[in-house]
């Protein structure tokens, strides 16, 4: 995701999608999705 418009804001769901799309921290997308879900669940609790 790129944010060209300074006034544009994103939902947290969109921020998480950005985290999943970023392959710089983990090459495997399934792993990225699973780890971000784990983070989400931890944040629920």
């Amino acid at each position, binding site marked *: 995701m790129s944010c060209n418009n300074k006034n544009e804001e994103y939902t947290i*769901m969109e*921020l998480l999608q950005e985290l999943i799309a970023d392959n710089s921290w983990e090459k495997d997308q399934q792993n990225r999705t699973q780890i*971000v879900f*784990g983070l*989400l669940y931890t*944040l629920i*609790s």
Partner: protein
Amino acid sequence: MKVSDQMYQDRIKRITKAFSHEEPDHVPVIMNAETWNVSYSGMKIEDIINDKEKEFECFNKPFENIYYDGTLFSCLSRDVEMYELLGGGAYFYSDDGVTIQHKEYVFMNEDEYPKLIHDPMSFTIDEIFPRKYSALRKSYPENVEILKKAKNMFLDYLQRIGHSAQYIKENSGIPTLVSGIGQAPFDVIMDYYRGFKETMQDARRRPEEIIEATNALVPVMMKNIKQGKQNLESYPFVYFPLHAPSFLSPKQFEKLYWPSFKEVLNQTAELGGKAILHLEGNWEHLYDFINEVPKDFAIALLEKDDIFKAKDKIGDTLAICGGIELGTLRASKSECIEVAKRVIDKCAPGGGFMFCTDKALLTPGDVKLENLIAVNEFVHSYGKY
């Protein structure tokens, strides 16, 4: 094979045989402790939060002097720093730096059940999280940068869980029994969305919405239990801390708590998983439901239940884990041994029994150390089959 490897394998065999209602060589002695390990090692939480090696040493140190066959946990259960980074959450360190504390907040209004029911994850992420975590209310890209840091801390925490279990395995031959966390949907609503008082009101005023919300949360619970896997291992276990039932009548439990929770348990069993059900408070009024759980699927970790009654009423379905109150472990040594002997005499025959304290050890004053050492030694030797 190193000595600790052999001891590790022997202990797993001891635990899994007892779990399956077979008689192992000895009654397994299980550790239920968290921050107590830190103070036992002469430290405070602030001494270990940024030093993994010290944390691993703290959680391993008790095994040098106290007999155990396994432990529920091998490191701190929460990364409080991560919640603080996000500007919220419900966890914090006690003023004396000895324990991790929890404060209850109400993040969901009573008229928001339809949104939770419609899409639990979207509602939680986009409406609950901004209320709960002030850092997520910041502008882009500051908010996403904080989320990235939180993700890195979470990754670090996942590594700590694995490495700490490996550390006590290699250094003490002790297995860690818990590999994942499961929860009952009703508890999730009470603990993380509505709070205790509000949920109990909802139970009377909005029962149908609670039922729908608990059903909507089942897939979320299962996704967390599966951790991306197609099947689950039968060992180690999925740990279910269960909070509300002690406060529910059998009628309320049957209608509001049990259907969605039973579904979570059945799906976990179908995937091949086994569980530790931490029956917090007193569950003696709910044993008919517990007997609906598949046989040899779970350990019942007792808190306030009478262990003899539990062994008699649910002991054929589940393995029973318990035996001594922390309060007893602060009495005289002879009283402690007498209690432990009585428990072994009645609960050990036939297997399906593990010895443990009724509550987690958290602070240095929770038990008299010499009593704990004497009792665990006694249980291991007297509990020989």
